[in-house]
């Protein structure tokens, strides 16, 4: 029973069963299309579904409206949050800017951009070796990358903070530089495993034909393999961005002084500042929210299929 589950969520192949269900849907009645047998004709069940959908929307999406409305309201006073702004103003953003939120956003963007680039390059190279080559110790290497997922920053925070202050052999101090955040994010087991699975599915014939034409390893990766796994790269990109943007503890321990903070860490310090009100905190939240919102809304299709694909495989 597990095979169709995996196949149906594979983002690559254009002829996925998901694509076929839309065609089948016309031949079978709609009530066989969902597990609960929802009917699309107006009726009691239909009304109930609309009501439940509205509740789900109110619980999971509406709170985001309060962030925006509060950020543009003069004195939201912490308590009188509402879904629509009143006394519209930009003063909260001006105060947030004076607190350096735009600089923190700059830090975050540099780290997210650099970290994502490094992560994609490193993980693609590793996945290519694991998927398209056979070598001694392959299973062990795969396990090592899987183990990196067992070692999140939380668990190794204290020794990692010591390592960042004095990198072994090189004796570099990465604290207070963006490298202190970027480098530890480079090898992400999730991306390695997902890309490996994906590259394994590329037919051997394509690779053999290219080899006969005298294509070298790097050209093989760049011109043959990568174009074929663009959907997986898209997923690795979005998930990688969200993972890096979500980092909290790592930028905190990699910082030397508060000017090194990322926007997520700065948000918490903004709140503890007794001078600024909750309107300013919400303005900061908006600043921290916008980039991930843009990335998500632009690439949400590949993201949603990707999480399912990666999770069912990993």
């Amino acid at each position, binding site marked *: *029973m*597990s095979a*169709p*589950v*995996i196949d*149906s969520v594979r983002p690559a192949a254009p002829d996925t069963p998901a694509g076929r*269900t*839309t065609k089948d*849907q016309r031949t079978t009645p709609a009530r*066989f299309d969902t*597990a*609960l047998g*929802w009917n699309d004709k107006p009726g009691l069940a239909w009304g109930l579904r609309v009501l439940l*959908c509205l509740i*789900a*929307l109110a619980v999971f999406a509406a*709170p*985001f409206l309060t962030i925006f409305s509060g950020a543009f309201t003069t004195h939201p006073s912490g*308590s*009188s*949050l509402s879904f629509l702004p009143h006394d519209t103003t930009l003063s909260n953003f001006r105060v947030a800017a004076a607190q350096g939120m735009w600089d923190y956003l700059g830090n975050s963007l540099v780290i997210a951009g650099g970290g994502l680039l490094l992560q994609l*390059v490193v*993980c693609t*190279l590793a996945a*290519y*070796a694991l998927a398209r*080559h056979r*070598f001694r110790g392959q299973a062990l*290497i795969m396990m090592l990358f899987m*183990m990196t997922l*067992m*070692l999140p920053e939380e*668990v*190794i*925070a*204290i020794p990692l903070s*010591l*390592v960042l202050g004095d990198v*072994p052999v090189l004796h570099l101090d990465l604290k207070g530089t963006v490298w202190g955040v970027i*480098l*530890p994010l*480079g090898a992400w087991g999730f991306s390695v495993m997902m890309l490996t699975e994906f590259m394994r599915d590329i037919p051997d014939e394509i690779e053999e034909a290219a080899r006969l034409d005298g294509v070298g390893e790097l050209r093989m990766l760049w011109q043959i393999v990568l174009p074929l796994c663009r959907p997986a790269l898209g997923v690795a990109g979005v998930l990688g961005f969200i993972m890096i*943007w*979500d980092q*909290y*503890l790592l930028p905190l321990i990699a910082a030397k002084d508060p000017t090194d903070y990322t926007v*997520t860490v700065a948000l*918490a310090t903004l709140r503890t500042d007794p001078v600024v009100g909750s309107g300013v*905190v919400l303005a*900061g*939240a908006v600043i*921290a929210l916008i980039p*991930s919102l843009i990335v998500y809304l632009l690439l949400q299709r590949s993201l*949603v*299929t990707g*999480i*399912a*694909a990666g*999770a*069912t495989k990993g």
Partner: protein
Amino acid sequence: MTATAPALTARRAFRKKAVVPWLFLAPGLLLALVFKFWPMAKGIWLSFFDVRPFLGDRWIGLDNYTRVLTDHRFQEAIGHTLVLGIGQSVGAIVVGFALALLLEGQARSLKILRTAVFLPAVTATAVVGELWRLMYYPTSDGLINSGLHFFGLGTVQFLDNPNIALYSTMAMGIWIWAPYNMVIFLAGLAGVDRSLYEAAAMDGVSLGQRLRYVTLPAIRPALMIVLTLATIRGLRVFTEVYVLTGGGPAGSTEVWMTRAYTLGFTRNDIGGASAASVVLLCVTLLLTVVVNHLRTRGEAR
């Protein structure tokens, strides 16, 4: 001569072929080694020492472990971690499954709904924490409290009452992870054979029975994955608690990792904090092995 030349080039080609994958693996392995495995080894090493800056470390064997495991605040943290981890995981699975059942379908409106409902999962935890802190505002005009007020209920001190704060944190955790689980369940539901539903309808099977005997067995792989991910995530919960309550009030939401963090970074007890991290690491690894074992055994059956 003619026989040895190809053999030589073949051997050279083989040697070259053996080196190539390692060149591709090198950057990833190097980064993982320096920033994951070396810190892990260092953490295990330090957990056996009394770490004293400038004075030199002193070997104390298992003292850090006994100290951490007998510390009553750590013992309380175990309880909180288990309650929060299990409650949050189970809650997010139940809510996520309900959402998946509700929002399954091909209609465009449903796709838009799914996009909107998934928002909590892509938002940085720090932002979510600030949002919920304001929604939990303890006076009657706070967002959730005004809702309770509307239904004639009194105000709740969500984050200031030590008896409630842990459950308030749990609610936020469910809010973050339920949409994430929803997507995995939706993928599972998409793989269910539609003709089974039709056959079930012909046999006069009720909706509840259909859900139990057709849908649930089909999405069992998805369920196992969600469960594994959630349990491991639940044990090492840190950021959610740290940004929402900081472990308070009165230590009522202190979990294992926030306690270890305080010990290491605030009290500068590097040895004790390392021991606490190693304990968590061992439990996580053990749990992963056990769950994986059960999973492979379940699939073989």
